[in-house]
């Protein structure tokens, strides 16, 4: 079960999901309920959240319920859907399709709809504004596939939500969640201490070569022998790695480093092949994944067995696993 002790040490915690309806809002509500009004909580979201019916899939969704004294950052047009008694603290100048993001103190308990900015830079700034207005702890609710907000610049700790809505097949859900967890838990690079503005950087035995122009990884490794490590700026995708894996270039012992885990957009199949070839993935900034929250409820029907999901997921990943519906 998710307890206060899990999140107590961190000032900013983000919640990310494997898919829509993965149970992020349930986890957020759980986290909100763990604190009494003595702790001022801050809540925002990437994109829109808290609506009663999912506007994409038309399925019923849980609403976000906050206690008095919580500070929320939400878009102006969503304020009318919040039934808390409101004290407007600030406007931020950050624009969303739902209007400018405003910072509001809940003077009473109540339901809120949260729609925050969608750019990492704005979230970092918003985090600071929430703290300046008095929030001791900030929770950031993610939207579908927005793993980028787990980036350590935005939050200190991250909870990954994996729900039955991802796939009716429990094996797929577990394998894919384990794969994402593995990426999120990648180690920090020993060789690359800082990033490069340029496209790519190579460590050979005695040199660090910086490649300015967009060049295929394969071609670069063919031209340069004895490469011990490669740093890639921006996203690392299947399409970039597949030609490399098929090229016959010796990859055993080579390190491939990205800025952070959210930049590795690779499938579990590709990750397996990389592992088999003996290549090691690393990151500049690690993500602090503090747990996986599983949700056996499938918004589209065919829910899974809670106990089976909990136990099998616990065996598959190396972080604590919580059942989001437990106790509710």
């Amino acid at each position: 079960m998710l307890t206060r002790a899990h999140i107590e040490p961190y000032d900013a915690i983000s919640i990310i999901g494997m898919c829509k309806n993965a149970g992020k809002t349930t986890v957020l509500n759980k986290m909100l309920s763990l604190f009494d009004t003595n702790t001022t909580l801050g809540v925002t979201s990437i994109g829109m959240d808290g609506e009663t019916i999912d506007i994409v899939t038309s399925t019923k969704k849980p609403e976000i319920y906050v206690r008095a004294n919580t500070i929320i950052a939400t878009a102006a047009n969503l304020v009318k859907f919040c039934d808390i008694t409101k004290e407007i603290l600030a406007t931020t100048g950050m624009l969303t399709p739902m209007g400018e993001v405003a910072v509001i103190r809940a003077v009473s308990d109540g339901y809120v709809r949260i729609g925050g900015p969608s750019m990492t830079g704005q979230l970092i700034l918003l985090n600071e504004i929430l703290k300046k207005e008095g929030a001791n702890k900030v929770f950031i609710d993610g939207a579908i596939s927005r793993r980028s907000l787990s980036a350590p610049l935005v939050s200190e700790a991250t909870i990954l939500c994996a729900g039955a809505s991802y796939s009716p097949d429990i094996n797929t859900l577990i394998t894919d969640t384990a794969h994402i967890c593995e990426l999120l838990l990648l180690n920090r690079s020993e060789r690359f201490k800082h990033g490069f503005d340029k496209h790519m950087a190579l460590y050979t035995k005695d040199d660090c070569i910086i490649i300015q122009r967009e060049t295929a990884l394969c071609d670069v490794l063919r031209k340069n022998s004895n490469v011990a490590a490669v740093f890639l700026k921006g996203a690392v995708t299947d399409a970039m790695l597949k030609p490399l894996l098929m090229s016959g270039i010796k990859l055993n012992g080579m390190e491939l480093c990205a800025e952070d885990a959210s930049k590795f957009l690779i499938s579990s199949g590709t990750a397996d092949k990389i592992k088999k070839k003996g290549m090691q993935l690393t990151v500049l900034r690690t993500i602090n994944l503090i747990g996986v929250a599983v949700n056996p409820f499938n918004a589209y029907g065919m829910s899974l067995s809670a106990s089976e999901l909990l136990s099998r997921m616990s065996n598959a990943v190396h972080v604590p696993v919580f059942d989001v519906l437990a106790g509710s």
Partner: protein
Amino acid sequence: MIDEKYMDEIGFTFVKNEIETCSPYGAELKRKLRFFKPEERGLLLEELENINKLCKAQELPEYKKISHMLMSLKDIRRSIVSIDSLTLNEIELFEIKRFLLQLDTIAPLFDTLNAKLELSGITINRISAALDILDPEKKRNPAFMLSGALSEKLSYAREQKRLIELQINSCTDAKRRESLLLKRAEFVAMEDAEETALKRNLCMELRPYAQEMLSTVGSIAKLDFSMAKAALAVKYGCPMPHITDKRLVLTNMFNPAVAYAIKSRSGGNFTPLSIELEMGASVLTGANMGGKSIVLYTIALNALCIQAGIFPFANSCEMPLFDNIYMVSGATGDYNKGLSSFGSEITQLNDAISGIEASGFSLMLVDELARGTNPDEGAAIVKGAVEYVCDMRCISLFATHYDGVAPFADRQYRVKGLCDTDMYGLKKRIDNSNKSRISIIEEAMSYGVYLVEDSSIVPHDALSICELLGTNPLLMNYIKKHY
């Protein structure tokens, strides 16, 4: 005021971009920059006088504090305008309260500044009565909330809501929780209805102050824009211009856009230019590469700046106000209109002349008219145009290459070019240097202009420049044969 296509070329866009306003209100005045018409002379003088005073106030502490405060302003005009017809929501009311609070800081600072400067046409006062409506308890903190003190019903609904929420928090039974939530919803609805009524009342009470808020915003915009223009004048050492009826005198004028380009290209400096023009036609002759076009651009730029209430780029300046400024140049061909460069400049000339005939007093700057046509006809066209324009209600300057135009004009200027240069020495320098020929000639070129007393002596710099640029000697012989 001037054809839009010349804004970049004469350097006006550059100058506009150099004006750095602090508030969104000032930024809008800059974006929608207006040019004062001759009949608005009084308004323009008021603006110029304000800028002149602000130039001297740059180091005052209240000046700096005001610019700092202006940066924190947000554009809330839409909310102010909406007070008249709509009920504002909490966020809009919050923004109006914040503006009124900011005004509480800006107004006394402006009073102190204005006691020293006596600026005209700018009034910034506190609107405390409006602020009291949004902050009846006079706490003066920036947060905004519809206070329960304003309505008994509201405070009752909130209290009931709070009591139910306490029960919800301690409730473990799902069914009971459900019924408590339903009960809560009743009071939420009551709270919402009361809040809506309260917001409507607040807007009604604010309505009488909307006009005052808008006019204060107007004054803030004016102050911000004038302060930005003053900062620009200080940066470039621009003087307060003297507005005349007919005379145009620019002493040591310069073009900041061209000066910037020269500086970043070769590290060189812009040679200041001085010129005096009166009603009628003047001609400007002189060497190729001598900067004739720059003289025209810089005059146009300064005339335009003054009519926009921007201090001129010169050491001193006397300038009349024009109804229109016309540039006529074949260099900016309207190829997209299907006109050749000749067609384009003749069309521009026609438009300018009919414009001058139709409207009041204009400035016309003509760059190398008919340069693309055969010299005999070209010279005839220029002579005709100069002679015709001499009697028109305008100040005009024709830059031209053609010999024999000057006698038809009221006065003649010539760019100095290479006339004072030791040609033999220059040639030697070119032969012995590994710098490009063009850059050495540019260095030797004198970009000043002078008034020509005897227009019969025509310098033939083109031949010298061909030689200096290393034209094939055999070709040179052929050219000289035809001189």
